[in-house]
């Protein structure tokens, strides 16, 4: 028996309204990635995570709990769970990632910050004011709550005098760049993904060749935001040969992740079909979205190694440039 749609959407919406995120993180979990970077607070340009990479380990924990509950009589109690959740953050209690899982996903924003610094980009960050963008609530059609949340984020940008935002994942990029302008009056923040910023920052040195990867495009980057060439440019510059799977670029095949909060079994089936396209091409698959990464990794069950693009770029920094 699937979980009742109304109650699951209700819990996620209540969390956004009451706690600023569909799955609230502690300040410590949301900002751990900044440790040791000594980034200035606020400023004209900020690196904005939207908490996406930090959230994913907890989302995974929650989905596992949902899978257990979905097949049991407990599914009938989600209405009660929603009432309790208004008082106590139940979803956070259900989703406890390991330190190792947290570290893998915290490493992404930390690496992106280092890559941007190496490229000569000056930026700060917002620490605990770096809020979730509302992406899942937007997908689920909770438009009034998302509009209210967008106003909260806009107010934070104003408070810190932010004019330009550099994003990391596709969902935060889409919300801040394309959705927020339709919801907010006087929103004039320039939003670009770090892939665009790094690709434009240039650099002609090509790192020594380091193998082949298959690239999985994110639907949101490719079809919502038109970001297709930049990851290929950056990987080529990093000396990595990009192999294309069936259904690549603007015609990329979804990882299934967007169905996960309500229908985990449909998400997994879609991911398995994508893995069948990726597996024959290379043993290493590069992703750009934390949701794609975890969903495909789960479906591949160890038969392919999945890595975030930032990690591959960071490794190239440590290799000697190719001669000539």
């Amino acid at each position, binding site marked *: 028996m699937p979980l009742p749609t109304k109650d699951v959407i209700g819990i996620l919406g209540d969390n956004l309204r009451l706690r600023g995120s569909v799955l609230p993180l502690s300040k410590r979990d949301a900002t751990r990635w900044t440790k040791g970077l000594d980034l200035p607070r606020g400023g004209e340009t900020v690196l904005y995570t939207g908490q996406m990479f930090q959230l994913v380990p907890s989302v995974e924990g929650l989905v596992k709990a949902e899978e257990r509950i979905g097949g049991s009589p407990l599914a009938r109690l989600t209405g009660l769970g929603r009432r309790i959740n208004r008082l106590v953050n139940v979803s956070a209690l259900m989703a406890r990632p390991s330190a190792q899982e947290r570290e893998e996903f915290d490493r992404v924003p930390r690496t992106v910050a280092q890559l941007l610094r190496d490229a000569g980009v000056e930026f700060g960050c917002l620490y605990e004011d770096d809020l979730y963008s509302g992406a899942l609530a937007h997908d*689920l*059609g909770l438009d009034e709550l998302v509009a209210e949340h967008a106003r909260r984020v806009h107010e934070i940008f104003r408070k810190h005098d932010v004019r330009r935002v550099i994003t990391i994942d596709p969902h935060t990029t889409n919300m801040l760049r394309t959705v927020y302008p339709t919801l907010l009056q006087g929103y004039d923040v320039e939003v670009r993904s770090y892939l665009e910023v790094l690709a434009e920052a240039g650099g002609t040195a090509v790192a020594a060749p380091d193998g082949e990867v298959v690239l999985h495009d994110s639907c949101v980057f490719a*079809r919502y935001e038109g970001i297709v060439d930049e990851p290929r440019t950056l990987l080529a510059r990093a000396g990595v040969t990009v192999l294309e799977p069936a259904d690549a670029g603007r015609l*990329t*095949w979804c990882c*299934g992740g967007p169905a996960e909060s309500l229908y985990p079994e449909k998400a997994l089936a*879609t991911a398995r079909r994508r893995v069948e396209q990726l597996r024959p091409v290379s043993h290493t698959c590069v992703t750009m979205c934390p949701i794609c990464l975890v969903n495909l990794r789960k479906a591949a069950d160890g038969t392919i190694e999945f890595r975030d693009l930032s990690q591959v770029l960071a490794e190239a920094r440590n290799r000697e440039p190719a001669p000539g």
Partner: protein
Amino acid sequence: MSAVVGPELAERVRAAGAYDAEACMNCGVCTAVCPLGIDLLPRRVFRYVELGLEDRVLAETETIYSCLLCRLCQESCPAGVHIAENVRTLRHHLNRTLYGL
């Protein structure tokens, strides 16, 4: 099955957000490319809305909330329908009218 065709449902859905499903030609390309293999969405649900068949729409909530919003169908739609946004608008409509959210 008999039904009275009426525009009220489509008008109410349009009031919930951006909605341009009337441009759908019912060609089925969306169904052919859907990664989830959804055969109902979007063209048939859109038709139910246009015809005012609210019961049919309400009977398909799982399909409507399953859609990945991945836009592969939209990329291929010859009529240029904003399919993903229409599905999101339908969810917004259902959240309000069916779930009271």
